[in-house]
């Protein structure tokens, strides 16, 4: 894992709980009592009429649907080796709780992906420090 080739995120103080949650294999979403959860993590509710700074972290189910996707044939790390070649799927997942997030789909055949397909989270421990939220078909 030490030689992971892909780009790694670096948390900010505001997003640290999100990345800490993933490391424990939990998808945590910042949540407003009135407006519900949002993505990506911000320390306030990003609904302009609310703009409430009282945010709690809640655990998402990890279930969702493929909102839209592409199949990249580019050799972008980590999809650039003999073991892990392109093509690969980049998808926007609509979580059961509502927010949408970018991810990769783990697919035997990328071209069997469909819009609105049901998926669930896979916690990919790409390094000792970083776990990426990826998804696979249910």
């Amino acid at each position: 894992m030490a030689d992971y080739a892909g780009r790694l995120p670096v948390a900010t103080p505001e997003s640290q709980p999100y990345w800490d949650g993933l490391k424990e294999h939990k998808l945590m979403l910042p949540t407003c009592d009135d407006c519900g959860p949002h993505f990506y993590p911000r320390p306030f509710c990003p609904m302009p009429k609310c703009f409430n700074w009282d945010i709690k972290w809640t655990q998402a189910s990890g279930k969702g649907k493929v909102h839209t996707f592409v199949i990249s044939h580019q050799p972008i790390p980590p999809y650039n080796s003999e073991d892990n070649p392109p093509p690969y799927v980049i998808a926007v997942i609509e979580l059961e709780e509502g927010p949408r997030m970018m991810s990769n789909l783990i697919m035997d055949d990328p071209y069997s992906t469909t819009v609105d397909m049901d998926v669930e989270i896979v916690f990919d421990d790409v390094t000792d420090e970083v776990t990426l939220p990826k998804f696979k078909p249910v």
Partner: protein
Amino acid sequence: MDQIRHKVAIVGAAETDDLGQLPHMSRLALHAQAAKNALDDAGISLADVDGLLCAGAIPNEVAEYLGIQPRYIDGTSVGGCSFMIHVRHAVAAIMAGYCDVALVTHGESGRSGVDAPRGGSASSPGGQYEAPFAIGGAPTTFSIPVLRHFHEYGTTKEHLAHIAAATRAWANLNPMAMMGSHRRTPERGGGPITPQDVLNSRMICYPFNLLDCCVVADGGGALVLVSEERAKDYAKDPVYVLGAGEAAAHWMVSQMRDHTTADGYRIAGEAAYKSAGLGPQDIDHCMFYDAFTFTPLMAAEDLGFVPKGEGGPFFAETKTGPNGEVIYKSGPGGDFPMNTNGGGLSYCHTGMYGMFAIIESVRQLRGECGDRQVPDVNVSMAHGPGGMFASAGTLILSNA
């Protein structure tokens, strides 16, 4: 809302001497050469410039490089539509007396990478929430909304392929176009293509094949603007700004509110129409930023030229010309002339293409386009996104 209509004019517009592969020129040299060419086009001295607007560079960088000290600056740098937004801001600045002669510059070593800063922070939202999923530049992100549009409206790759073929047909009439017949080479190709050629080209990032994607180039362009009162004092016929709009809708494409509608396009378009007192039916010629074939389709829908979801069949409509040739809806001879320079798809795309869309609108309105001149162009729209449908800028320009 008609305060800005016809108050300011573009009196100079030009690209760099060449476009394409220019490893001998840096980012700032491209800005400067484009500035020289646009000022020469207008017949204005650099010494008269007192407003400077640029993207992809801090205004101070360009001012220092050129040796000027402008009293009005704008460094709005939100991607390819920055220059439409600069024109809008220059109109306001000239009307307010903040400057008299506004110079808008673009220079980008998008292919050779000579002083081309790349990539953002790994702590930025994009660095945390998109980049780790093997995002590889625009083909993997500008493509994200497309399959949702296909899913909801039945749009197809065949529809999109017609836009590429139509745009190439315009490029074949433009000696400057990288992929046009004039500049075709055995290595790079160029010259006429059919929709089937687009579908047969190498897959880059489904649903985009190679010929759904813009070219990658070095180049630059610039504009010079002055008040309507002074506009007739210069070398060329003025092109008046009738209307303009801008918007910022999101930044990461995953956070786009509705992947089938560009909110920014609608906001910018509505402001442009309102300030011009015009609607889509009044536009004779469109320059719709085409980083990919899907991009102008979204513009045609969100700017009201076709109902939402009907852009695919609209652009796929063809007719047969007098010599049996295929006439594409948006191509030469078609009834929706669009991207008549050959577009980002086949003319030039540096990374922030919007400047070139405006230059072509100006040239069509002046009647300077030779073989590709569209008859009776009196009102032209230049519109583009910045980022992945993230921001938008719209201009409605006229020669009268």
